[in-house]
């Protein structure tokens, strides 16, 4: 059980600040996800914790032990690599035993611990196999067994599922999460897949250009994005530029995209430029009585099974995305005029960046 503390850590590559003065505390036993687009610094931050990227400024603590000054092989972290990094010259059992041998564990104990670790990842009996005989998912499990067996202080995952196909990916992430919870290991998990992050994490940090944009539970981050970047990155909110109108004591009318959007509360002074964030699922096809509504012309309909996504053009031509249930019949062709109802309380505005 380890609490990880990042204390203003920084790292630059040439002129690029890959990790820029990041501070965070990861509570013991939590699965903490670093989420962000490629190049945001999430992998660099993970590698700084593992000891593969130098910490230029700042400190990293495991509980009250400072670890950023230790060499990588003395940090007792268990890292699962994107490409698994299974040693091709060693059998599965020898791969799993690798860290134990490096720690000079007695050979008699090694065999038992290796078997236990392999059983844990449902690979009992695979010890004598060679890596090239295993599938991608099995290699992934070997990689996990290999780090679990050393009983690391923390687990580090570097986009561990990105090489697997979609079905295996959802299956593996459930397994990873269950293992992590059962063992209660503090875990840092790097991904660029927002669905994966939301599904697996206790807490998520959204990174952008080396800085943490927002930290919170999946629900917090999804429902109350603090910045336009987070709102757009997570869930693909429609970002519409607008100009605030008058506040009628109840709602503010914002002129946007050739129409008017009503938002609860006094969100901005009249005349101020801003961005209106509307989640695709915050819009639905309106009944005759619904107020307020957005008028838009259907451009394209994507049927995705559970949901269907509508692409519609606002009066000035700006396209918005709308998610509705897949079971809802939309018997209209492209070009049809549609009205979308929304709840003014669910619309968030951000000041123009």
């Amino acid at each position, binding site marked *: 059980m380890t609490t990880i503390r990042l204390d203003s850590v920084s790292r630059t590559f040439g002129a690029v600040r890959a990790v820029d003065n990041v501070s965070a505390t990861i509570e013991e036993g939590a699965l903490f996800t670093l989420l962000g687009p490629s190049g945001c610094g999430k992998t660099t931050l993970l590698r700084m914790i*593992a*000891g*593969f990227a130098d910490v230029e400024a700042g400190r990293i603590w495991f509980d009250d032990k400072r670890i950023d000054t230790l*060499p*990588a*092989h*003395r*940090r*007792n*972290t*268990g*890292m699962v*690599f*994107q*490409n698994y*990094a*299974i*040693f*091709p*010259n*060693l059998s599965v059992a020898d791969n799993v035993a*690798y*860290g134990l*041998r*490096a*720690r000079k564990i007695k050979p008699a104990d090694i065999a038992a611990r290796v078997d236990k670790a392999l059983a844990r990842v449902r690979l009992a009996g695979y010890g004598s196999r060679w890596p090239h005989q295993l599938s991608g998912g099995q290699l992934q499990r070997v*990689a996990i067994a*290999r*780090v679990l067996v*050393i009983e690391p202080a923390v687990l580090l995952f570097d986009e561990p599922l990105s090489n697997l196909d979609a079905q295996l990916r959802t299956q593996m992430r459930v397994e990873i999460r269950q293992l992590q919870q059962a063992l209660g290991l503090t875990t840092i998990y790097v991904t660029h897949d927002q669905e994966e992050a939301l599904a697996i994490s206790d807490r998520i940090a959204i990174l952008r250009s080396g800085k943490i944009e927002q930290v919170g539970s999946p629900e917090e981050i999804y429902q109350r994005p603090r910045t336009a970047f987070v709102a757009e990155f997570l869930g693909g909110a429609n970002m519409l530029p607008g100009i605030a109108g008058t506040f009628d004591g109840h709602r503010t009318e914002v002129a946007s995209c050739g129409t008017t959007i009503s938002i609860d509360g006094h969100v901005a002074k009249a005349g101020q430029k801003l961005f209106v964030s509307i989640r695709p699922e915050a819009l639905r096809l309106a009944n005759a009585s619904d107020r307020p509504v957005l008028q838009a012309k259907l451009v394209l309909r994507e049927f995705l099974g559970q949901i269907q996504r509508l692409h519609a053009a606002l009066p000035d031509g700006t396209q918005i995305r709308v998610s509705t249930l897949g079971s809802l019949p939309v018997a209209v062709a492209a070009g049809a005029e549609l009205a979308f109802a929304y709840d003014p309380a669910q619309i968030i505005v951000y000041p123009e960046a």
Partner: protein
Amino acid sequence: MKAFRYTIVFGALALLLLFLLYPLSLVLDASLRVNGTGALTLGNYVQIFASKYYLNGIFNSLLAATGATVGATLIGTPLAFCLARVDVPGKTVLLTLATLPLVLPSFVAAYALVLLFGHAGVVTTGLRALGMTIGPIYGLTGITIVFFLTLYPYVLMPAVAGFRAMDISIEEAARNLGGSRLHAFRTVLLPMAMPAVLAGALLVFIEALENFGVPVVLAEDRPFLAVDIFKLFAGEADNNPAAAGALSVLLIASTAIVLLVQRRYLNKRRFATDARTAPSPLPLSPGWRAIATGFSWGIVILSLLPFIAVLFISFLSFRGPVLTWQLGLSNYSMLLEGSFRPLYNTLFVATLAAIVATVVGAPIGYVVTRHRGPLSAGLDMIGMAPFAVSGTVLGIGLIIAFNSGLLTLTGGWLILVIAYVVRKLPFCIRSSSAIVHQIEPSLEEASINLGVSPLRTFATLTVPLMASGLIGGMILVWITAASELSSTIVLYSSRWSTMTVRMYHFLEGGEGAGSASAAAAILIFFTAAPLLVIQRRLRREGATIL
């Protein structure tokens, strides 16, 4: 596409059948017959195994080859690691220079050793004046030293590629699991590079076993397999083609076995991880870095020293076999006053061989890479077979096969070109197959899909895309053909003598040290210059060329 494939496959097979397998089968046949009468016999083999001299020759050859293999591995592997993973200053230059010993004529290096440390060598006489003597460089010692100093790149190049091909995450995983850098090297990095190292080491063994030029310069009267074969076949004193045939069969059998083992071994163990992130240089302390730098530069300079010495000595004057310290071009004028003919011959034959070998080898490399199947596998195997055949033996086979009858080819330039094309074909197949690996098959499929016939697609799309790789292979053929001695010495005729043959005769006569050094210098120039010009491309293809 099928017709195209079969044309290539059967064309190549026919060519190798006629100019490789047929001559070799005649050598085998000769070894099984009584000289003169033609009756079948095993007597030639009995004679060899009863003769202490020939047994000694076999033993010496095997010993020198083993020593060369061990030496080349012991210096090639650490050097490879330094060049792959340590920030050695001038690394790229070093990598280029390190390929030179492989293509420079090895008998020139042997000759340099004689010039420096021989009976009348510069260093020997200098030390003698100071009252010191050095051990003999003739015989096994000198031959083994020259072998591993000229052949270690066979280990170095694939090992560098092997160390570089490991994704950094492999090493990081080892460290993350608690292994120190040394531990990670011992348990993961070295074992993963080992197949590449051993594959290269076996090539060293083959090359050393069949090499003719180095023992011919340094063996003096000691028996060596490759030299004895030549003497038995072409010597005036103890001419015995049947015994030469028997020795040849033994030589080919041993190299073929080693080549088979090498391919088996290599095919079974492919540890290459696709290095998505190349490993970064090791953070070494200044002291260790200085040691690595000194070691790397030391080895490479040491291996080039013989060639540099020859270049230098060629500009000094000789009085008989004795070197004087007078600068001048007398060696060159002496060499060339006879005639420019051997130089022209060398350039002409090497150029022709390079073109033909490329034209033949490129489609073979293409088919072998693109179309997996038993036919391609067989072709791949046979295409690499010339590696196992010593030049002397191939020359002897070609003489037996084409000296008379329907197809008489001996006595002109054509037989030299044929011998070179067959011997150097593996270079072309390798470099062509390496470049084809890098061309997306979908490009050709798109072309065919758009209505261009497979044959035209190959000619107008694939070949231009392959061009860069083919030129590398072509120049390699050119270089090695220009410096080829072993098959040339059997096949040349007086009008079609080459620079290497001239040099051999100067050395054999014992009086032509000056002219020999000039000939050697010219050979070095014509082999090193093109290699340095295309060094970048060769380096990129690295291991595939070997």
